[in-house]
């Protein structure tokens, strides 16, 4: 089959049409939409207007996509500073939905949607699912969490609008998930990849072979995962596993998606404009080079984002994709440039670990977080240096100390974490500061 044969394939859903726009059409659409977005934030969001003024980048000065680097960045800190509604560009009468993402110290980031934004979100989620081969007739088990988290409702409306049958089961209760998967003849599962690995293990314990079920597609996102994990999932279940990318600051899931070639994620560029920058200097990187992904929304109304720094490290793939889509691809996200850790889909910050240690020991010992992947599942170990104050000659006292720290960590971050007591001065210190996180997950 040649390339034009592929684009004309009857398997493509009509919703996927914008995936195949000629580049020059796409780029003029992007240019026009960027102008509209800049005028919108300039006239409606004082915080953006101030930043743009300070950078001498008023809408008239940005004539095209090439001028984008002249605009100031938006960061997570800007979102926190404007908590809860400071960056909204629509009056509450037009806003029909709010979502929120988890924050470090209580304050979440609030995101808003107008009716138009929700249909935009639905359309990019339709295109995402269609890209993975989901269609009407599929039975979609949506095990992303429903609620403030964007994953559940995002996948829900996308699948429903595609004509698939949605089971809004949300996260948790693994035994029930497996029974539903088996009894309802589920063909598509949506969840975090680490949770699906848990499902695989539990199903095996229950004597159910996922390989023998009609399940054929997995839509996995909300956390970084590796090719090794994909191989493992596919080998154990016979399904095709797809990576989906999104973040609530931009819209939620549906920012980027893998096609059948699964070699990078197509960004829905007609709505979200990607740039790759050097996270240290903020300047652009050479084409194809790795850096931090920066996204500008081109059509969002309630909460447009101008050059939002995602903290996700990736690269734009310069070559066109053999699937025929003209949307550019980013490499799979392997790591983030800031300190937030995503462990089994849960956001964890070193500051939370510190809070738990302080609670138990009353002073902050030297510690290190070591992340590994055991049979595809994220493992978090906290190594804590023993101090003269905490050390005891009695084994039971030290075991009790480790147990108390484990309990405090579980209370603070909501995950069971292994605590290992280590000898003093064994945790490497660079320039007087300890290296807090050792992430060995990508080595697997």
């Amino acid at each position, binding site marked *: 089959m040649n390339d034009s044969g592929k684009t004309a394939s009857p398997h493509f859903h009509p919703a996927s049409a914008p995936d195949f726009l000629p580049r020059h059409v796409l780029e003029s659409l992007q240019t026009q939409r960027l102008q509209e977005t800049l005028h919108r934030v300039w006239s409606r969001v004082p915080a953006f207007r101030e930043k743009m003024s300070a950078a001498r980048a008023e809408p008239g000065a940005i004539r095209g996509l090439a001028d984008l680097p002249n605009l100031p960045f938006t960061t997570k800190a800007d979102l926190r500073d404007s908590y809860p509604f400071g960056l909204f560009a629509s009056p509450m009468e037009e806003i029909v939905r709010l979502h929120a993402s988890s924050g470090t110290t209580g304050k979440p980031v609030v995101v808003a949607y107008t009716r138009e934004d929700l249909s935009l979100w639905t359309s990019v989620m339709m295109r995402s699912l269609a890209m993975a081969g989901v269609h009407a007739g599929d039975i979609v088990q949506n095990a992303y969490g429903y609620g403030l988290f964007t994953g559940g409702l995002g996948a829900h409306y996308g699948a429903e609008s595609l004509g698939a049958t949605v089971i809004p089961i949300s996260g948790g209760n693994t035994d029930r998930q497996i029974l539903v998967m088996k009894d309802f003849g589920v063909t598509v599962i949506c969840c975090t990849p680490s949770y699906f690995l848990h499902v695989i293990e539990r199903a095996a314990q229950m004597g159910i072979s996922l390989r023998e079920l009609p399940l054929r597609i997995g839509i996995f996102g909300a956390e970084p995962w590796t090719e090794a994990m994909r191989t493992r999932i596919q080998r154990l279940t016979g399904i095709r596993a797809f990576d989906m990318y999104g973040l609530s600051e931009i819209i939620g899931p549906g920012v980027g998606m893998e096609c059948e070639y699964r070699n990078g994620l197509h960004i829905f560029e007609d709505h979200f404009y990607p740039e790759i920058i050097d996270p240290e200097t903020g300047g652009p990187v050479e084409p194809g080079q790795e850096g931090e992904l920066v996204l500008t929304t081109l059509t969002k109304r309630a909460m447009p984002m101008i050059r939002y720094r995602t903290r996700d490290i990736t690269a734009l793939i310069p070559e066109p994709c053999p699937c025929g889509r003209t949307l550019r691809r980013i490499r799979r996200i392997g790591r983030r440039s800031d300190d937030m850790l995503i462990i089994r889909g849960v956001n964890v910050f070193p500051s939370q670990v510190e809070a738990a240690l302080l609670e138990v020991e009353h002073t902050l010992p030297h510690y290190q977080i070591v992340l590994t992947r055991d049979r595809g599942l994220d493992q978090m170990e906290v190594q804590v240096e023993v101090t003269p104050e905490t050390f005891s000659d009695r084994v039971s006292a030290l075991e009790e100390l480790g147990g108390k720290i484990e309990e405090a960590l579980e209370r603070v971050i909501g995950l069971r974490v292994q605590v*290992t007591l280590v000898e003093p001065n064994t945790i490497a210190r660079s320039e007087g500061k300890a290296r807090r996180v050792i992430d060995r997950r990508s080595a697997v």
Partner: protein
Amino acid sequence: MKIQQLSVFCENRPGHLSEPIRLLAQAGIDLRALTLADTQKFGILRLITRDWQRAKELLEAAGSVVKVTEVIAVEVPDRPGGLAEVLQRLDGSGINIEYMYAFPYVRGERAVLVFRFDDTDGAIRRLTEGGIRVLELTELDGF
């Protein structure tokens, strides 16, 4: 009558026990007793030496966490029932043994038992009243 025992935290990994031992050997510190309490994750090296203050300084200078604990050493006949006779003296006293270890007397029929009690003074009183000889640190040199 109380003996100063040093406890040193060790990670349960190859080589982590030999480090402090080598350090003390190089400094010419003579160890009277040595035992390792280990768990899956970590170990506690316990040692008795007349030079405990210098040993502590050396270990701490090398970065170890060291704790000084008072323990009791008693001498018993090295035959079945030797330990039972000692423990009998504590029956009904409410004194608990946190841990203990033993080592044989080099030249013959006697053994030394080292105890860590939750009530050291109470244990000394009980044992002494029961006719058990509690050893001084210097007496261990003969073993």
